[in-house]
């Protein structure tokens, strides 16, 4: 699968926290050719509870599938890849360093100002112009996609996670009109009592979840009880339906 879709922008990474030698032996014995990494603690950070656990992450860092969705199918991946627009290549030359740095830092205002300023020069050679124009096209599509994403986040129903993502986008796109779009949505959240209620319910759910370690059987039972109470107290909210889904999942395991 990795070979089949890697040109289209898919990267499959095997992640493990086992000993280095063990992993090296495993890779050799199985003839694994896709990237494998050792990352102690990552499984815990992501909250995976069984092996294998798959998480799919979008080009801008959003979790698209969790282990609850099992392994994404080929059809699903194909569809998801349609939205992937690859950052054009940037030749390994020092004249591209300012642009490279701006991209790496997610400093999009700087990306834009650098592109606009440099492309306005008349003494640009053909190669540099081609490279920068490709980056400008990519930048424009990024802005377009981000604007759509902001609209979608504004529709809910997970207003708390939307708030966190919008704040991040606002920071990354500071100085550009999309940052104002994100701010506008956040202001709307702030002035809508129903949305404020949804947000405080989601925050309360986060707190409930953080009180118990679902990996410990003794605490899992308490978590299930706390979730049931939560559902009653916050009935009708998005967080209550999330709590219910989590409770059913925990009860099954």
């Amino acid at each position, binding site marked *: 699968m990795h070979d089949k879709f890697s040109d289209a922008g898919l990267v499959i*990474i095997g992640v*493990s926290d086992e000993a280095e030698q063990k992993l090296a032996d495993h890779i050799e014995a199985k003839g694994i050719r896709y990237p494998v990494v050792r990352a102690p603690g990552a499984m815990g950070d992501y909250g995976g509870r069984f092996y294998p656990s798959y998480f799919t992450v979008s080009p*801008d860092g959003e979790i698209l599938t*969790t282990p609850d969705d099992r392994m994404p199918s080929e059809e699903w991946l194909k569809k998801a890849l349609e939205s992937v627009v*690859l950052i054009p290549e940037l030749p390994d030359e020092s004249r591209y360093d300012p642009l490279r740095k701006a991209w790496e830092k997610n400093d999009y205002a700087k990306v834009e100002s650098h592109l606009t300023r440099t492309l306005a020069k008349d003494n640009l050679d053909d190669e540099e112009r081609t490279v920068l124009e490709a980056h400008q096209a990519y930048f424009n599509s990024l802005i377009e996609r981000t604007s759509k994403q902001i609209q979608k986040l504004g529709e809910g129903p997970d207003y708390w996670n939307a708030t966190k993502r919008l704040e991040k986008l606002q920071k990354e796109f500071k100085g550009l009109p999309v940052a104002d779009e994100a701010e506008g949505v956040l202001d709307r959240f702030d002035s809508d009592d129903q949305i404020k209620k949804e947000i405080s319910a989601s925050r309360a759910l986060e707190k409930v979840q*953080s009180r118990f370690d679902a990996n410990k059987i003794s605490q899992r039972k308490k978590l299930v009880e706390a979730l049931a109470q939560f559902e009653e107290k916050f009935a009708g909210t998005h967080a209550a339906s999330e709590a219910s889904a989590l409770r059913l999942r925990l009860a099954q395991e």
Partner: protein
Amino acid sequence: MNRRVPLAATAAALFAAAVPAQLQKGTTAPDIVFAKTWNEAPVSLAELKGKLVMLDFFATW
């Protein structure tokens, strides 16, 4: 006064680390810095911005 901030932050970090609630769809994937890599893997998840990434948490056993 100033001393209380890092203490509170540490307590929150410890608490969060002990609590592996599964991350949900639509949330931001936290960065992972890789301790060791094979087969031309990048050094961190953040490096893969712009790609569709499938993380396969596996066990050799």
